[in-house]
Structures are given as structure tokens and as C-alpha cells.
């Protein structure tokens, strides 16, 4: 398939293709000035480019090249991330058609962010990790501020940019300290250098702390979560749908590789940090969302809580922990794609709405929408028979096996609190008096994605749960 490429370029094929195709699309759109019919002209090639990249990643041979690796672990993560990006493109079409912002730049920046996330997921060097993170976040800052005429979007972009720049600074400073202590930025060499350390090096500890703070910002883990609700709310909803899944997948993948490969010898240093981040994120996710009136803010706090659960599994520092993270991440991706599909079909009189009050009584007027959103909410709350229950159960089992009882208790308590606000959304939809119906969703693509995700969440426990479970365990064994 890729035999026309010189062998030296073969490992870079997917990333090269994605970057080159994006640049060609950029040039093509500048040359072809056809303003009126621009949406199909950009959404279609964008989804094609991502689809071809998915095929290339799938066909990629496994090799290590300087600063990057192509292994099965990264491959699976990249496939998941690109699929999430593809879903975001599909979900965005109806929204962008109804509220044209700057459609063309939206897709270009989404593609460039995907390049950054691919770099993050295959980075085996702190430098390529940093470049990937920077490429991704710089695109995301602009995406958040894309609707420049509205105050909220501008505020979101500015807030995200200022805090993100600070976190990049922390990350870079941490990298330089680690380089100072170990003399290398390459993951495998870092492990060897850590073994040679005769006494504990404070410089290394400080460096690891800074790096993890920087990544926690990107993961929106508490106490570095301040930007999340504002950015989720202020950014155009199509952008938020992209924010919620793909960047989280990329950050978790990069974090796993960094901790379990790069800092494999320094587990005692990062384990406590992970525990604190996990406990705080779960609590903030649970208590922060209680009073939210806006569904996007609610989902922002919910994602902070979910990140807390994943960090809790990461802090176990065992293979079982990684498997639980992967399982959780898969379920999280499906739940959030579906939930944002629902948010993207909330329209009243042709206007997009995002307040929870607008959902009052929709179970009678839009039953399909109401039941799908209810499934996602119950699944996120971790109510049995839905997929979210299994993923939470798996995490708790792993954490209890590792004897981290305090953390587990915090997790259980915060998921009880969190259930309150998920159930409130259901209550508003099913029991409150009807004010006005939502518009019938005109977009078949959004509808299909929502229904497929809802069905997948419901039947998950019967059919693919066992297979996904086995798949995650195989997936872990590919991390070297």
C-alpha cells in the first residue's frame, strides 16, 4: 500500500499524509474562492482526509524512529482519537450550516490539532511530546475563540490561551529540569539514567511535578480545571464536541506512555501526584456541577470527574490499572460523542439552546432525543446495565486491589453526589411541565450517531463488554 514511499519515510506515513493533506486543503481553499458552497467543500475533504489517515495508521508497520514510535499501543490510541475527531466533524456539519462561523478555518484547525495529537500519542521523547502538545493546544485556543463576535467565545479563547500558555511554560520548565537531572529527553534513555541515580535527585522530582502540572492542565484535572467550564460553554458547540473527546484521548495516551515508559523508574514520585489529582478532580467534578444551569457547563464538570476516575486508575501503577483506564476511556468516548450529539440537536425555533431548562418536558415532544440523552446521563452516572457502570466498576475493583481505600471511598462518594445532577437532567426531561418543544432534528447524521451511541451504551453489558475487556488487556501488553 505504501511501497512508493522511501523506506526512511514509511514510519511517518500517516502523520505526513495528514499534515500534507491539510496544507493542500488550505492552499486549495485559498485558490478556489467559492464562498457560498464552502461547507460541503471543506467538511467532505476533511472527513475524507481523516478516513484515509485512519486507514494509513491501520496499515502502518511498527518501527521506532528518532523521537517517535509506531507501536500497537499508540496505534490503537491514534485510531480512537482519529475516530473521535471524525465523529466531531460529522456532528459539526448541521451546526455549522445553521450558524456559519468560520467553517473553513474550523476544519483546518481541527486537522492541525489532530496532527498535534498524533505526535503526542507516538512521542517517545519529551521534545516531540512538547511540540505535539503545543500544536494541539494552539489550534484549540483559536478554535475556542472562533466565534469572535460573541463575548463568551472571546472570553473562552482568551482564558484558555492565558492559562494554556502558563501550563506550557510549566511543562517546558519541567522538561528542562528533567533534562538537567537525567541528561536526556528520550524515554528509554531516561529509564536507564534514572537507574544510575545513586541518591534521590530533587531536581528530577521538581521536574516531574512541573511536567505533570502542565499535562494536568491539558487534561483539565483539578486543581488545573478552571478553564474547562468557561471554554466548554463559550466555544461554539461544534468545537466543544471536539474538545470533549479527542484531546482527552490524546492527553491520556501521552500521559500513560510518559508515566509507564519514560518515568517507569520514578513511580514513587508521580504516584502521589496522581492520587491527589484524581481525588480533587472527582470532588470538583461532583460538587461543581450541582448548581449548573447550562448543559455544556454540566458536561464540562462531568468530564473533569471522569478524568478523575481515569487518573485514579492510573495512580495504581499496575498493568490492571492501565487496562481499566483504557476501558474507561473507550466508554467515555462513546458516551460523550452521544451526549454532544444530543446537545447539538437542541434547537428551538431554529436557534441553538444550551440551557437545562430548555429540556423541560421533551420526553413527550421528542421521545427519541429524551431517551437517548437519558441513557447517556444514566451511563455517565454509572447506573447499572449501562456501559458507564461497568467502567466505573472496573476502576473501583483495580483501586481496591491496590489497597488505595481512601481514594476509592472518595470516588464512591463523589459518584453518588454526581448522580444527583445527572438525574436532575432526566427529571427535567421527563417530569417537568412542557414549555415548548425542541425542533425536530433535521440532520440524519447527528441522529444516527446519537442512536448508535445510545444503543451501544445500553447493550454493552450483554455483548461487547467481554470482548472489549479482553481487548483492553491485550492493548496494555503492547505498551513497552
Amino acid at each position, binding site marked *: 500500500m505504501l511501497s512508493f514511499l522511501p523506506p526512511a519515510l514509511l514510519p*511517518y506515513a500517516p502523520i505526513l499524509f495528514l*499534515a500534507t493533506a491539510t*496544507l493542500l486543503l*488550505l492552499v486549495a481553499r485559498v485558490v478556489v474562492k467559492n464562498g457560498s458552497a464552502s461547507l460541503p467543500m471543506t467538511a467532505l475533504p476533511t472527513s475524507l482526509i481523516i478516513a484515509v489517515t485512519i486507514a494509513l495508521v491501520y496499515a502502518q508497520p511498527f518501527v521506532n*524512529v*528518532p*523521537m*517517535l514510535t509506531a507501536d500497537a499501543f499508540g496505534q490503537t490510541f491514534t485510531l480512537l482519537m482519529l475516530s473521535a475527531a471524525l465523529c466531531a466533524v460529522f456532528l459539526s456539519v448541521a451546526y455549522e450550516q445553521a450558524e456559519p462561523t*468560520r467553517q473553513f*478555518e474550523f476544519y*483546518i*484547525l481541527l486537522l*492541525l490539532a489532530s*496532527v*498535534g495529537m498524533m*505526535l503526542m500519542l507516538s512521542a517517545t*521523547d519529551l*521534545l*516531540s511530546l512538547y*511540540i*505535539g502538545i*503545543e*500544536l494541539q493546544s*494552539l*489550534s484549540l*485556543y*483559536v478554535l475556542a*475563540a*472562533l466565534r*469572535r463576535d460573541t463575548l463568551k467565545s472571546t472570553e473562552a*479563547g482568551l482564558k484558555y490561551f492565558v492559562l494554556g500558555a502558563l501550563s506550557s511554560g510549566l511543562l517546558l520548565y519541567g522538561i528542562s529540569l528533567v533534562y*538537567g*537531572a*537525567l*541528561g536526556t529527553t528520550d524515554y528509554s534513555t531516561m529509564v536507564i*539514567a534514572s537507574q*544510575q*541515580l*545513586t*541518591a*534521590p*535527585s*530533587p*531536581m528530577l522530582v*521538581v521536574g516531574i511535578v512541573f511536567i505533570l502540572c502542565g499535562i494536568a492542565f491539558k487534561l483539565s484535572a483539578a486543581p488545573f480545571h478552571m478553564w474547562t467550564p468557561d471554554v466548554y460553554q463559550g466555544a461554539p458547540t461544534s468545537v466543544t464536541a471536539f474538545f470533549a473527546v479527542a484531546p482527552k484521548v490524546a492527553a491520556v495516551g501521552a500521559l500513560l506512555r510518559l508515566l509507564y515508559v519514560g518515568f517507569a523508574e520514578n513511580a514513587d514520585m508521580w504516584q502521589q501526584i496522581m492520587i491527589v489529582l484524581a481525588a480533587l478532580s472527582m470532588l470538583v467534578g461532583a460538587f461543581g456541577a450541582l448548581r449548573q444551569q447550562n448543559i455544556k457547563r454540566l458536561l464540562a464538570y462531568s468530564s473533569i470527574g471522569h478524568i478523575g476516575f481515569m487518573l485514579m486508575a492510573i495512580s495504581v501503577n499496575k498493568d490492571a490499572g492501565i487496562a481499566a483506564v483504557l476501558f474507561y476511556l473507550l466508554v467515555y468516548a462513546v458516551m460523550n460523542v452521544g451526549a454532544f450529539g444530543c446537545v447539538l440537536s437542541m434547537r428551538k425555533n431554529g436557534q441553538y439552546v444550551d440551557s437545562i431548562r430548555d429540556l423541560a418536558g421533551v420526553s413527550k415532544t421528542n421521545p427519541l432525543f429524551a431517551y437517548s440523552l437519558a441513557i447517556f446521563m444514566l451511563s455517565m452516572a454509572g447506573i447499572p446495565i449501562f456501559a458507564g457502570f461497568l467502567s466505573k466498576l472496573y476502576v473501583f475493583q483495580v483501586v481496591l486491589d491496590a489497597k488505595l481505600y481512601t481514594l476509592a471511598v472518595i470516588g464512591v462518594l463523589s459518584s453518588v453526589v454526581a448522580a444527583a445532577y445527572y438525574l436532575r437532567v432526566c427529571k427535567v426531561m421527563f417530569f417537568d411541565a412542557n414549555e415548548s418543544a425542541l425542533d425536530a432534528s433535521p440532520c440524519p447524521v447527528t441522529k444516527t450517531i446519537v442512536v448508535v451511541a445510545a444503543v451501544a451504551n445500553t447493550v454493552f453489558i450483554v455483548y461487547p463488554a467481554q470482548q472489549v475487556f479482553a481487548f483492553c488487556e491485550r492493548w496494555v501488553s503492547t505498551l513497552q
Partner: protein
Amino acid sequence: MVEFLFYIFAGLMVLSAIVVVTARNPVHSVLWLIVAFLNASGVFMLAGAEFLALILAIVYVGAVAVLFLFVVMMLDVDFEQLRGNFKKNLPAGVALGILLMVELVMLSLSWRVVPAVTTASSSDTGVTNTEALGRVLYTDYIVAFQGAGLVLLVAMIGAIVLTLRKRDGVRKQNIGVQVGRKISETLEIRSVKSGEGIS
């Protein structure tokens, strides 16, 4: 000799950094910042990092400091008002400074690096910094190099997306019209009698 030069550069750098903070006129602050940068560049030069020294002079003095100067002169920032809170924030600032100092001292007392790191040095290989960087920049670090290029592209796209807007009622230069003007449309020759002027 090198030691003597080091103390001159380092001393001047600290002095000019103090002036940056204390100068009343913000333009003077920026100019003193440039002096500090140049002295830092001198220190790098003494350490044998000539590439870093020149980059510091070119990028920081040539671009960043000039940008600062533009910001200071173009934006209407009331520096006196900013300075008004100085006394109020002084205790917190001093406390933070002491904390940082203690941390630095603690770190430097327990400073440990991998033995292999301390012996590595670039000065004994016989190539200049620039050559050594050039050897790895396009080979081992090609991914990071190209990635950095993409980051700059995103910055460019972002700046254009966020600032480019089409507004009505703006007087724009239309070069075609401007060049196409004829003498007959724009110039009129009149003979003016002295002491009367043109009505």
C-alpha cells in the same frame, strides 16, 4: 581574564535588571532590558555557547525587546496607576521572594545529577556550536523541527482568523483606481493674479 569579564557582564546584568524594575519611564525600562539581554549574551559567550549568545542578541534584543517597545509606546497603559499598588503588594512580594530563595538554596545544597551528565561537554569536540546543532537539527530532531514549523503555521492562521474582518465604510486604498487617475482629472492649471488668490 575570563573570570574578570564574567563578573563585569554579570554585575552589569544585575544592575540593569534592577534599573528595569525601578525606572520611572517604561521606555527606559525596555532600554535597560536590552542592556541586560546583551550582558546575558556576553555571559553565554564566555561559557562557550556562542550560538545561544548570538541568538539571544538577535531574537531577544532584535525582536522581543523591540516588540515590548512598541507595546509600551502604542498601548495606553497607565504605569503610575500600576505602580500605585506597589506598597500594598510589597509584603506579599517579599514573602514570595524569600520563599523562592529558600527553595533555591535547598535545591542547590542537594543538587544531584546523573554522573554521565556532568562529564558531557560540547567544547572538547572541536566543532562550533552552530555546526553541532546543525548536525542534529535536521537528522535526529527533524520531527521536532518540522513540528515547530507547523506550530508557527497554526499561530499564523490563528492570528489571521481572529483579527481579519470585513467591515463596511472603511476607506481602503484602491491601487487600480489610484494608478488609473489622469492628469486631467486631478490637476487644474489656473493663472493667479498677484494679491487675489483663488476663489
